[in-house]
Each structure stands twice: as C-alpha cells, then as structure tokens.
C-alpha cells in the first residue's frame, strides 16, 4: 500500500517534470513562429505629399500593405462632416484621406470608383465613401489609418506623430 502510493507519487512527479520540459519547448516553438527582427525593422516609408493630384486615388506601399492616398478636392473639403474632419489629414494647405487600403472586414483591397467617389470590396461587398467611412457592412469600422508623422511636406509612415496619436486616443483608428 505504502509502496504503491509512493510509486504513484513518483510517477506524477516525473510527469510534472516532463510537463515543464513540454511547456519550455512550446515557448521556444511559439517564438520560432514570431515575425523575424528583419521583418519588423523594415517598417518605415517616407512619402512626399506635394506630388499627389487632386481627387485621384494613389496607392503607396507600407509593410507590404497598400496605403491609400487621396488628396481631397475643394468640393470634398467643403462638404466634410464633423466625423470626416476628424479623419482628415492636413499637410501644408492640402487635405488628405490617408488609410491602410485593406477592408477592415477580412483584408481585401477595395477598388476605388472615381465616378462615384466610393470604394467597393470585391470579397464580401463592403463599401466605403471617399473619406474612408463604411457605407455598407460587413466591414465593422472605417479604414484604419497607419501610424504617421508629418515633417514639413513629408509624411513618415510607421512612426506615430502627434496628429496620429490624437486620432488614436479619440478612437478614430485602432
């Protein structure tokens, strides 16, 4: 009796030690799947904001993702609602819609229809207006805005400036 319970205890203790080994190796395995430092480091893109034509959607690339840059026309600026103004990015005298060009539903790139000034996602039919707001579900929220910092006429993507921080704090973007 005494013997067998001790044997039982040693068996469990052995199991516990083996378990520590398993957990340790799982940690190593998890970390092996993490993005590599080189991937994480290559994350900054500088844009010259003076080159964009008005009312035309230009797609830039940042961290492998498309970035929509739309310089707003005078008409768009005049018609902006309060919530659209909060998403507005101003560089010098120009107003821009800057956004990660991926549908916030499941990440397809919505196509821009210049005539209707709206975006349509081919995957699940979500729609956005020219300011980046959702006009038809399933996307749960407006386009995400990439971290940006304005320096004169230049914009650095990947670095959070005060304008971006303000948007993030007020919940305009994630």
């Amino acid at each position, binding site marked *: 009796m005494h013997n067998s319970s001790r044997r039982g205890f040693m068996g469990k203790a052995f199991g516990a030690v083996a378990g520590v080994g398993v957990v340790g190796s799982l940690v190593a395995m998890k970390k092996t799947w*993490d*993005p590599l430092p080189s991937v994480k480091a290559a994350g900054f893109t500088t844009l010259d904001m003076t080159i964009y034509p008005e009312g035309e959607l230009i*797609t830039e*690339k940042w961290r492998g*993702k*498309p970035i929509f840059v739309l310089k707003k026309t005078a008409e768009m600026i005049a018609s902006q609602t309060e919530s659209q103004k909060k998403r507005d990015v101003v560089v010098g005298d120009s107003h821009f819609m800057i956004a990660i060009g991926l549908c916030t539903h499941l990440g397809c790139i919505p196509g821009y229809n210049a005539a209707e000034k709206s975006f349509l996602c081919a*995957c699940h039919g979500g729609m956005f207006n020219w300011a980046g707001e959702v006009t038809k579900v*399933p996307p749960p929220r407006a386009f995400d805005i990439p971290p940006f910092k304005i320096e004169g006429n230049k914009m650095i993507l990947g670095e959070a400036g005060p304008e971006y921080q303000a948007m993030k704090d007020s919940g305009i973007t994630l």
Partner: protein
Amino acid sequence: MAHFTKATSVKDWLNQRLAVEKVEKVMASEYWIPKNINFLWAMGMVLAITFALLLVSGIFLLMYYQPDVKDAFYSVNYTIMRDVDFGWLWRHVHGVAASVVFLIIYIHMFTGIYYGSYKKGREMIWISGMLLFVTFSAEAFSGYMLPWGQMSYWAGMVITNIFSLGGLHMDGLVEWIRGDYVPAQAFLARFFMLHVLLLPLAIMGLIGLHFAALRLPHVNNQDGEEIDFDAESKKYLAGDKAGSKVMRFANDFMSKDMMVVGIYLIFFFYLVFFQYGFALDPVNFDPADGLKTPAHIYPEWYFLWSYEILRPFSVNIGLMAFGFAQVIFMLLPWLDRSPNAVPASRRGAFAVWFWLLLIDMIVLTAMGKLPPEGMFSTIGLVAALAFIVLWVALPFITMNEKKA
C-alpha cells in the same frame, strides 16, 4: 523469449514473428460486413484510393516545388508544368483529387447522417471522421497556398485575418500565424511544412483511428437491422454463404469496393484530363500580387457553404456563426436525441430535416460563390439563418421520435 521452431515455409516464418495469419483474419477475411449495404458503403475505399493518389502525386510534385515566394510560382507553372516529364500529370491529378476528395467526403458524411451511422456505439467513427474532415480542410487550404498565385495569396490573407477574431482585434495572433504583416516568405514556408509533413502525419494517424473505431461496432447497414455478427459469421464459415447475413471484407466486399472504385476512376480521370478548370482556378495562374485584389475572391467550392455563413453578417456575429458551423457537425451524435439507428426515410420529421439541411448547404455553396450583391445577399442570409435554425431545432425534432 518466445519459442521459435524451424519454419516450414515463408508464411510460417512470418507467422511466428508477425502473426500474419491472425492479422489477415482480423483485418480482412474475418472482418464481417453486412450484406444489406449499397454502393455508398464503398465511399471509404474510394476515399482511401483518392488519398493514395494525392500522396503519390504529391511526392512527385514535392521533388520540384520551391517554397520560396520568388520561385514558387515559376517552379509550379514552368518547371512542373513545362519542364518535368509528366509534371503536368501529377499536378492535374493532385489538384483534381484535392477537390474531388471533398465531394466524396460529403457523400460519405451525408450517407452517415442518412443511415444514422453515428448512433450509440459508433460515436467514435463519427468523431474521428469529422476530425479527418477538419484536417483535410487544413491540408487543402495549406496546399492552396503553395502555387503562390493571386488566389493563394488572397485566400491566405482573408483566412488568416479570421484569427483576429473580429472585435477582439488579435492582430498579433494574425501576424504570429503569418510570421509577417502580410502573407510573405515565412508564411509560405510554414504552410509548406504543414502541407507536406505535419498535416499528412495527422491525417494518416486519424485514418488509422477511423478504421479502428469501425472494427468493434461494425459498419451499419441500409435497413437499420441489428445483426448478430457472431452467429451469422459462424453460419458463413460453416458453408452457408448464401444464407448468412454477413460476408467477408476480403474478397467479398472488396470486390464490390473495387467495382465502385473502377467506375469512380472513369469519372476521376475524365476530370483530370478534360474538365479540370473547377479544381485549378484560372485566377491562380496569375502570380501573387499584394497590391491588387482579384475582382472576385471565393474559396474552393468545398469551403463555400461555411464561407457563406460568415459573409452576410456583421463581423462579430459572422465569426460566431462561422465558429458554430465548424463545430456543430461534431456534436451530431448528441444533438440527435433519438436512439433509432435506421434510415432517415423511416424517421418522420428527421427525414425532412435531412433533405432541408442538404438543400440548404447547396444553396449556401452557390451563394458563397456568387457576388454578394442584391438578391444573392438576401438568399445567402436566409440560408445562413436556416442552417443555424436547423441545427438548433434538431434535438427538439428528434426528442419525441417514435421507436422505429
């Protein structure tokens, strides 16, 4: 050590060491199969043959495929399709078999549902089968990544984004799965590993479990008849082959298996050589481009029904419905409250439920492929709701079922 005698024959030599005669009896000649079954019972063998085709063709593709984002598309479309002698054959066999295997899986599954082959004593057959379905799905998805065409890339993007779990915003988990912000080299290489090593290992293990789960309860039959396998097999062995209700697996049932396999292969090879477009999507012959989504994105046909359950809802509800669809089949043996292991045609309301479920899933499949606009959106939404309602209603429908 056990006592070994000088062998009288090769068979005897093997018998002493591996008990081959015993194994042969357990696995084949005295593995008793009811006689009252139809060709739907041969789908297991059809699946085994299809899996073998996938394995063999996959081995030859593996020798030339390059899991590198710069070379993958070229290695598939130039090296394998143009350079390697019969490379195109392996690719077509692999692509078509990967698609057709799901057709057979669905037939196999609905056969099980129709005849109640998941009931008391056979739950493990059902569960191991559903686990096989899940691993086959993962295997199909990971394999779809490898040619690194437009559909590979965008399917990879959309499906891995599901892991951000909507409102939970687990972008870190998504990036961890991809090893990058977007599907890129790390993503391709790890899905390659999953496709050629880890998942095939899991599938082979599960196939073993599926077969083992079948051995004690025996296969079901088309009349819901309870058969005394001991008595009937004695009758058979005593020489009354025609009077016994059972037959040997080999060669008796196997000969029928092979007949069905023969007819199946006519269909299969016709698809491989002359009608392969449904399995080798044209869009995937455009190389992956992370800055351009194809005009229409849709998964392969066998994922469409669950994709359509995700689609018509807002993101969080959609994900919940999708999660529901993924696990609900697994719970079938417990959601069906009736003990009757007989064909659906004799189960009243359950028969209606069965055909409604089948039709609903076909509607979901069709809507999953059609563009999500106008009427198609509405039909998709109704079908998705109907799917959920059907499953929620199942316990109530079956609870009061009369003893058949």
